[in-house]
């Protein structure tokens, strides 16, 4: 079956522009996660959605970052006024609701801020 998909695969933008990154989780998965992989910081958690509960935003690095999940499925990560330090690979993962289930990762979106 289809895995987690992310779009675009690559995004180049200019400093100060806003960007939107999209994640389509595996059908039926109620939990969705965003992570960031960068040279300086490694792999770090950003935000976590579980069903209809309020998202865990504890990993968002600044108020320029926000995410939403519409209809319990597709999620969009928005970065406003991008900075060069936002350059990274943004990874999305999803899992079945029950605790203990594997998180399946998408291929990521490589963001480059010039």
């Amino acid at each position: 079956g289809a895995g987690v998909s992310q779009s675009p695969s690559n995004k180049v933008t200019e400093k100060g522009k806003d960007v939107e990154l999209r994640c389509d989780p595996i059908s039926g998965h109620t939990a969705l996660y965003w992570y960031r992989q960068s040279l300086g910081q490694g792999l770090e958690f950003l935000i976590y959605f579980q069903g209809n509960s309020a998202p865990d935003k504890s990993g968002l690095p600044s108020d320029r970052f926000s995410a939403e999940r519409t209809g319990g499925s597709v999620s969009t990560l928005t970065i406003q006024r991008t900075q060069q330090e936002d350059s990274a690979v943004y990874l999305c993962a999803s899992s079945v609701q029950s605790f203990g289930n594997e998180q399946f990762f998408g291929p990521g979106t490589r963001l480059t801020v010039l």
Partner: protein
Amino acid sequence: AQSVTQLDSHVSVSEGTPVLLRCNYSSSYSPSLFWYVQHPNKGLQLLLKYTSAATLVKGINGFEAEFKKSETSFHLTKPSAHMSDAAEYFCVVRGLFGNEKLTFGTGTRLTIIP
């Protein structure tokens, strides 16, 4: 808070020889631990997971890991390395129920010498 420390940033082994990738964890409760692998330009893939059942965990592609509470370790091993094992490996700890974000180690790059 939980964390993992990968003791080697880079490991090189000859094809056909054993692989050992070291990971130590820190957690105030019984942790759920994972090893993920990331091949170049590919997504993260789960190798194996420990969730308080058997302390010796077998994963895909001949890898296994042993949970040792007395040593707070979760080292990844494979008896005989294959060229296709060349990749980045991440030791990961998961949060408790209701806060299931993953915390990643800094990664170990495995190089296989022909």
